[in-house]
């Protein structure tokens, strides 16, 4: 059941490539009765033994699957209907509902059903949402009657209810309202929005409750006039099922396995690095240049600028940038050089202030730290550019570090920095901006080199170990890409279906 998406299915698919698949013998299915040329084609008989209903797997419990075997012969113009009832004795009454469905073969939906299974290529399915068939009553419009109900349910107090009723009753046009009346209308609008929000939550809860009940299903094939039920001994077969919220998305197994495996490899290398701290890491020119840049600023007596970019604190590029800032600030404090940090986001400002202050304290110069050196400059993109560019031109920094998340402003900042003659070190994971930095800056940290900055600068064994684990993951992906491309190319030549192999490496949907 859970075979789809798992590694073993990939191995089976690889084996399948070596041995071309043979067609599965079709299961015996009930035939249709012979027809004369003038009588309408008989409706196909559906196999009652393969008619079933069950909770849809890997979902939030909002749907039930009804499945049945595809008939051998499907005449033109037929369709399928599902009858749903809250109890077995409700069929034939107005408590039961009939829903037309558009079936698809189970094998065409690898998200929920295994494409490996031969039977899935013969089974139709339709997803039925009980809450759509038996919808909960709508909360109703915001009228005086509704307000009374809300008051009775204690969702409004008496004062609110009276005020709302009074405002609803007022038919004055907008243009004739006084300021006070306009304020009251706005209050009413906010009240309605609040009520409708909680109505929406209540509706969702009721839908979940409806979907979770057990329902009874019957299936019929129809040509618009006649109807033939799935029957046994002349009696329509009834099956039952209810929706259940699941805890695992099975169609994401491949993703989860990869994520956990990769994480395990990284943690393993972190552990290894503790015992063998002398791990090799190649030179990253941009990070080697940090000391050189700050030294140059010290010699010239000009400040160092650190530009964070537009990222917020929850972005990895900004976290990495803060690591680089710690190093830059520490060196600047050691050399008694001013470092000016220009921030775009308030939380990043607070973190940067802490980092720089700590750097000065560790260098034994806590008095030299000026909080105004680490400040918010603007919170919109081009205001930020204007502010930073203006300061660059006025203060003529000797070194500029642009590390973090950047967008269209990258070239504006880099060109302005270049025009001042500063040495520029950039680092970003925004690959659309990399070309601009590469052409205008002295050193550029490309993508993951930025994330490696903390490990590289601190040389801490645990961090270096994580880099090694990352490299193993990359090697694995490179091998998969090469082998996969080769297999798919050969499959094209030999006309072998490798959909299963491809499905291993993409989200199934």
């Amino acid at each position: 059941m859970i075979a789809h998406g798992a590694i073993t299915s990939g191995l089976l698919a690889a084996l399948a490539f070596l041995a071309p698949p043979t067609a599965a013998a079709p299961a015996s299915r009930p035939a249709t009765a012979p027809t004369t040329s003038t009588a309408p084609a008989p409706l196909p008989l559906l196999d009652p033994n393969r008619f079933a209903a069950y909770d849809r797997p890997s979902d939030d419990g909002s749907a039930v699957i009804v499945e049945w075997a595809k008939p051998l012969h499907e005449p033109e113009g037929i369709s399928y209907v599902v009858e749903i009832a809250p109890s077995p004795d409700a069929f034939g009454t107005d408590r039961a509902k009939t829903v037309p469905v558009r079936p698809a073969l189970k094998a065409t939906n690898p998200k929920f059903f295994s494409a490996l299974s031969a039977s899935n290529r013969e089974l139709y399915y339709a997803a039925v949402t009980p809450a759509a068939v038996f919808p909960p009553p709508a909360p109703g419009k915001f009228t005086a009657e509704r307000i009374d109900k809300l008051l009775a349910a204690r969702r409004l107090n008496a004062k609110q209810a009276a005020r709302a009723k009074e405002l609803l009753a007022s038919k004055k046009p907008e243009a004739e309202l006084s300021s006070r009346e306009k304020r009251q209308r706005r209050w009413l609008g906010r009240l309605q929005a609040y009520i409708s929000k909680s109505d929406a939550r209540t509706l969702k809860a009721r839908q979940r409750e409806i979907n979770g009940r057990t329902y009874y299903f019957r299936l019929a094939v129809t040509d618009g006039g006649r109807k033939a039920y799935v029957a046994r001994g002349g009696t329509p077969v009834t099956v039952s099922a209810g929706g259940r919220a699941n805890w695992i998305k099975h169609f994401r197994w491949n993703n989860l396995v990869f994520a956990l495996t990769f994480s395990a490899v990284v943690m393993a290398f972190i552990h290894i690095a503790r015992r063998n701290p002398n791990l090799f890491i190649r030179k990253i020119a941009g990070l080697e240049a940090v000391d050189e840049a700050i030294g140059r600023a010290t010699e010239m007596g000009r400040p160092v600028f650190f530009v964070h970019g537009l990222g917020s604190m929850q972005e990895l590029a900004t976290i990495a940038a803060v690591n680089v800032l710690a190093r830059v600030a520490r060196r600047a404090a050691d050399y008694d050089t001013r470092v000016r940090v220009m921030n775009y986001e308030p939380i990043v400002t607070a973190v940067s202030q802490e980092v720089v202050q700590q750097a000065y304290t560790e260098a034994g110069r806590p008095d030299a730290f000026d909080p105004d050196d680490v400040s918010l400059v603007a919170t919109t993109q081009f205001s930020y550019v204007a502010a930073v560019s203006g300061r660059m031109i006025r203060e003529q920094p000797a070194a500029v570090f642009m590390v973090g998340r950047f967008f269209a402003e990258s070239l504006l900042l880099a060109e302005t920095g270049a025009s001042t003659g500063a040495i520029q070190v950039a680092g970003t994971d925004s690959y659309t901006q990399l070309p601009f930095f590469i052409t205008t800056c002295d050193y550029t940290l490309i993508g993951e080199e930025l994330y490696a900055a903390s490990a590289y600068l601190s040389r801490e064994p645990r961090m270096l170990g994580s880099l090694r684990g990352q490299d193993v993951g990359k090697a694995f992906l490179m091998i998969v890409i090469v082998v996969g491309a080769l297999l798919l190319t050969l499959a094209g030549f030999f006309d072998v279906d490798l959909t299963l192999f491809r499905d291993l490496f993409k989200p199934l949907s």
Partner: protein
Amino acid sequence: MAIPQAELRRLAIAKHVIFVLVAAAVIVPFVAKVYQRDFKPTSYAEDLFQKVHNLDANTRVLISLDFDPGSEAELLPMGVAILRHCFQQRLIPVVMTNYPSGVDLARTIVEEAVAKSEVDYGRKLTSGRDYAYLGFRPGGVNLVLNMGENLKGAFQTDYYGKPTEDMPALVGVQSLKDLKLVIDITSSAWVELWIVYGADRFGFEYGAGVTAVMGPDMYPFLQSGQVIGLLDGLRGAADYELLLQRTEVGKLDKTGRGILGMTAQSAAHVLVIVLVLAANARFIFRRATGREKG
């Protein structure tokens, strides 16, 4: 680059000359009103156009204008062109935005498209009946998910304060599942969020309009079919306007900002290429004669 001062001074002069030339290259085509209209639109722009063109009349199309005035230059022409196409085909566009700073811009786009279309097609277009502008609601991705369950619940009133419950423009649209096509025009990650939290979940077809620098990022989605058509940058807007013009050849001139901007863009690109080639010619000559290092 860390450049010596003498070189900086020389470059500063060259820079000012370049700036003047670029300004001229951009301004002159607008002043001289030289427009090129015989270029071939890209295949993905054509795909989006055909998708909209083949929708039945009165089909509701959701257009999300997720950008702020910073990206107006490239994305506004797309928005106007698509809306005009919707009005031409008697579709009913439902417009919204996920950017609080883009609410007024989106309103401007809608009003511009309405004004132009009323002149072009000779019929009055009324908000709430022929189109709907829903404005902005906070929530981000949660808003999209809520719209997927109950669109009118997510937007109880439109931007102008009219209730959406019985709005004629939203008849038959309870949620995103009832929409055939959603188009997102954006300069941010919203283009992918609409795929992950919208198209993949609720089953509508999805077209996108993005800035030129983001265009290549969308190619994998085009290849996989998750995006059925794409407009990238001002060229994308020009492609769409051209396709729109061709549907009414000889009738009305629908030259929008996209086509107007193409000549300026062509001139600027050619200028940059000429400058780069000239600089390299000088560089190669100086290296050959021993006056240039490296």
